[in-house]
């Protein structure tokens, strides 16, 4: 067991950030960690940005990750990933869904959506390693855009030591009953994409 692992989730309202971060908290608890989680979702339903912090540790005090402390950044949307370089710990990993949701100022032609390369260099410049995941594409292939987050979770799980059963059980326990199988499938797809087999 590691002393602590800090995860930061970034996304846009309606992408399922909260649910997926709840699953991650549950995995930590079932594997014997103390866990805390915090989310900001005041106006999320209205298309605003959503952030969620998950912390695993022997003993966790603060429910939020400290700047420079995140071991993993889980971004459900590309622009949202770029907002968090100051939170990355040295050697951290950013797992980013290759998916764009245009903000209003871009829609109105007033600002530019950053290039993929720009986003990558913002994060690598802060000491992170970037892994792109075709979460949106996979989710569409499985027939539901809402699955992208669970695909990303699968990709994350491949980098951690916790047994796969702990992950699939948490997915099954937390998603709505009728979408259980589909979510486990999406999770395993993400896990496979990350291990490359």
């Amino acid at each position, binding site marked *: 067991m590691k002393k602590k692992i800090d995860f930061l989730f970034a996304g846009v309202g309606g992408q399922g950030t909260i649910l997926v971060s709840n699953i991650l908290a549950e995995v930590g608890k079932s594997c014997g960690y103390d866990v805390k989680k915090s989310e900001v979702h005041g*106006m999320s339903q209205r298309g605003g940005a959503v952030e969620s912090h998950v912390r695993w540790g022997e003993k966790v005090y603060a429910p939020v990750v400290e700047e420079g402390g995140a071991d993993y950044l889980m971004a459900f949307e590309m622009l949202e990933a770029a907002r968090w370089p100051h939170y990355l710990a040295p050697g951290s990993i950013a797992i980013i869904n290759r998916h764009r949701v245009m903000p209003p100022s871009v829609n109105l032609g007033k600002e530019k959506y950053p290039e993929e390369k720009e986003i990558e260099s913002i994060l690598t410049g802060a000491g992170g390693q970037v892994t792109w995941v075709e979460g949106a594409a996979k989710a569409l292939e499985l027939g539901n855009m809402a699955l992208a987050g669970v695909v990303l979770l699968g990709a994350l799980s491949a980098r951690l030591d916790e047994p796969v059963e702990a992950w699939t059980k948490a997915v099954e326990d937390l998603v709505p009953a009728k979408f259980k199988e589909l979510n486990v499938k999406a999770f395993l797809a993400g896990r496979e994409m990350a291990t490359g087999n």
Partner: protein
Amino acid sequence: MKKIMSGNEAFAYGAYLAGIKVGAAYPGTPSTEIMDNFSKYPGVYAEWSANEKVAFDVGAGAAYAGGRALVAMKHVGMNVASEVLFYTSYTGMKGGLVVINADDPGMHSSQNEQDNRHYARFAKVPMLEPADSEEAKQSVKAALEISESFDTPVVVRTTTRLSHSLSIVEMEEPVAEAPAESVAYERNASKYVMVPAYARGRHPVIEERLKKLAEFAETTPLNRIEPGDDQIGIITSGVVYQYAREVFPNATFLKLGMVYPLPDGLIRELAGRVKQVVVIEELDPFIEEHVRLLGIQTRGKDVFSNIGEFSPGRIRRFAQEAGLIPGSNQSTVTMPQLPGRPPMLCPGCGHRGLFYALQRLNVAAFGDIGCYTLGAAPPLSAMHTCGCMGASIGVIQGVDRVGVKDRTVAVIGDSTFFHSGVAPLISLKYNNSSSTVIVVDNRITAMTGHQENPGSGKTLQGADTPVIKIDELARSIGFNKVDVINPYEFRTVVDTIKDHVQSEESSLIVAQYPCVLNIREKKPALVVDVEKCNECGNCIRIGCSPITKVEGGISINAELCIGCGFCATICSQGAIGPQNKEGGTD
């Protein structure tokens, strides 16, 4: 067994475990989930009251009758309900009465960041402040016990971070109780009828109670000294305790679970153990000023700001700048300039139709709080004041009495109208005003996550109930000019507003369309015929997120569009419509 729960879920669970049978609240971020969750436990009664004051009165009545009661509200809700805090402080009550008050440092979703610890001192009632979900669960029981042994309402203070953070909670067996038999209401006028003669008798009782509570604060396990080194002694409470623990791992702590009244003895004991006392608290120097009054030197707001929410990082930076801990945590990461993602009216939201019409008519709109406040944001920019719930109708009366050149309207949501719009509407009619009030009625309390309200036909616990009709209510008050319109029907909306604002008598418009997010409305997405589009920009000006300016025209994102058709209505060229078989527009 252990479960991961949010602070708010844990409050509800704690209330259920402690045998609370009656709960009342009005929604408000970050408090809403407390009553939402409580209402689902077996054997409890829970309601959305019309506003926080009513909720608190309901709690008071339940406790007067000998029941244990729970009331919950956001910090500004306490402003509305504070009358009840003051009278219940004087009367006390038979059963336990717990009020959960949720402050919002950082203003994640509020109009101010007032520090409601002042209310405890103001009304001379005890206040607890838990620091994680397990403590949140326990705090309800502790509050009930204090309430019942000291004959006082007890406020439990939470903050957004505690309410919306999850941590591990120990599951317990609820107290098995035989259902209580109804007993006669206990009549005791000198305790419960607060006329001056009786109230004078109560004030000394309240002062005496406060002294006893201060003694209790010294011995309750809610407050504790956590030994550490003798350099720094930190006094703190709530979630800030968790942050401070990370930044000062070796310090001695006085962790307060009860923030009013404060334990003078424990504060002195801490001061005696360490070289320097440091108070770390969000917002006002509430604890710090008390420590200073004891003649103890302390660091506090000279180090840690009284503005905004704290975080471990912020506390670390403040402490480093003041030299309390070594190091300078100047981040080397340069923050990129990125497009923001402000909240906006959802695709298909009925409010949009009304605000677009107001913008086109260049009306000065005096507003209120809800999703519809987003009508103030560009590109609609069609609301010009928003202070607190229910303000719009009184404000327009004042504006119109001074008289301005502009056409003026008040705009208020349905839930806000039931909350605090009815009395101002009566006041308007009574004073022969000529103002126009528009109720933007989306049939639900949308902003806070779709709670039922007096206009929605359902109660919190799912029972059917008659819909209170806003137009009929206005007519019964004496309004003659009342119209109910569909905000998507642009021409009707424009004509009705024009007609009302020029009228000599006060009038009311109900712009009614159900919240599309709540009813999950989704019709086929619309498309733009690029041949017909002349890029006039009308559709961009309605601020609907699927509508995007692209090279050579406009495009509508089919995934986001719910097909409400409003953009088609206001398109000057008839270039927007449903997709036809060939892929163009009809």
